[in-house]
């Protein structure tokens, strides 16, 4: 029994591997998707407890993928957390406005990533960043 299944949607292979390494080390089960389309399909199949979604993706972006997840009955309830580049000011509030349940800033600090993921899993509907 793992503490949870996390779907990581991120187009950069190395960064996806980094998130997987860190989360698996903390005991989470990790499923990966490299595009928004893959992420949406994957979410319907594996029933994740949490989705970490990069906002800038090739093809359909994070926001579009989020809408698709919310539209499907199977994935409507899954908390989706935006992973945003710190560079973009206003990105975070925009992410919350778009309906993400929270956000994690890039570059990801591996020390806080696990805490953040745990926080989102414990309070899925909080809609807030866990510090």
């Amino acid at each position: 029994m793992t503490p949870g299944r996390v779907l990581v949607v991120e187009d950069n292979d190395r960064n996806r591997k980094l998130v997987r390494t860190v989360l698996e080390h903390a005991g989470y089960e990790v499923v990966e998707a490299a595009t928004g389309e893959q992420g949406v399909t994957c979410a319907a199949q594996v029933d994740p407890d949490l989705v970490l979604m990069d906002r800038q993706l090739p093809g359909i972006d994070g926001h579009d993928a989020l809408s698709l997840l919310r539209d499907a009955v199977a994935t409507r309830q899954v908390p989706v957390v935006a992973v945003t580049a710190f560079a973009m000011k206003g990105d975070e509030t925009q992410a919350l406005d778009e309906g993400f349940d929270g956000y994690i800033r890039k570059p990801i600090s591996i020390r806080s990533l696990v805490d953040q993921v745990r926080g989102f899993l414990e309070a899925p509907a909080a809609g807030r960043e866990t510090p």
Partner: protein
Amino acid sequence: MGRAAEEARTLQVTNLNAVSLDVHLTVLHDFGWRSVLVVPLLRQARVVGALVVRRRSTGGFEPQVCELLETFASQSALAILNARLFGELGTRRAELEVVSQHKSDFLASMSHELRTPLNAVIGFSEVLLERMAGELNDQQDEYLRDIHDAGRHLLELLNEILDLSKIEAGQMELDHEPFVVDEVLRGGIALVRERAARHDIRLELSVAADAGLLLGDELRFRQVVLNLLSNAVKFTPDGGLVTVEARRKQGQLQVSVTDTGPGIAADDQERIFESFQQGGRGIRREEGTGLGLTLCRRLVALMGGDLWLESEAGRGSRFSFRVPTYDEAAEVVRAAQPAGDRAQPLVALVEDDPLAVDLLTLHLEGSGFEVACAREGAAGVELVQRLSPDAVVLDIRLPGLDGWEVMSRLAADPATSATPVVVVSVVDERHRGFAAGAAAYLVKPVSRDDLIGALEHAGVPAGVSR
């Protein structure tokens, strides 16, 4: 006309009937013109045009007329050239703006593209340093730290490049929210404490009691403070001292970071604010980005302030910046008009803690109240008697007369006895408050909603929110 241009001098034809006509002159002759004067417009031997005067009668043009026209011609030539130059300058500037915008866009996307692989460099070195892939020997640990620190350094550089390009493109937007100056300075010091301790550098903070709140962009303010602080620690020799001071001065908040480092020679003092210049600051135990001070100065300028340096080689440096604060005195003056003329309800705020004054003032003004403030009890009574405000917001623990005494004096004066009093205090003595005639009693900390709700309850609804 062609000849006048060629010879660059004034020419005239006194009788078109008497000369052999070229194509142009034939046209003039056929239209009935009989004499013509041509004055070339010359600028440095270059012909930029010509003045042509035609007459229906034959005869020479008078020398004064020629002279006048030549003067006029030289002025016209100048004007035409200037107009052309202005035109070119306009085009050039538009081109430069496009180039500058391209540069900013390029830098923004470049730093984003660079950030992605850097994320992996920093992240995986953290994974190893956290021993997620097993134990490390001391040397491995040290080298990994080098990789990690170099990655962080590169990231910092990228962030600063991005910030600067945003400022240059006019895309840097600053927040305008209240924050507590003291807390931000403490936070900054906490972040460099470990590094300072490693070099036995003492950190001292001195914040004047009136530093209070600042309206602005907390994140950017913190960035400037942290940059100055980490520079100071970086350039101060082991066992030195770094001091941070903050105080209000003529409607501005001034923050200074002083170090006991090697100082900066007069010749270098302006240069270090330029990109990638670090000045001859002797020891440099860690590399800087070379952009920090440039960025700080630009950020402070965006905040409406300025940043400067006082230093002498061998005697340390003091970097200071000041940013405007909103002027409390002006608020009082603005509010000090008779009740009938007021567009907005007036609240007399009697409170001695500058932080609370700032915060409550922000709450009140944000809800459309005018605010007049007194810092101690007797002045508060006087203020209420003088201004006849719509309500009083009163602290209990005040220097001189305390809040209870203020209430009893207001109640004893028929002119002020009907003015509702909202008590805002750290001590919860509601019963005593209501017994003394308070319309509402709030215990600190007080939210904006609590305060405005209490005033409304007391019959003083908020004005039009600004």
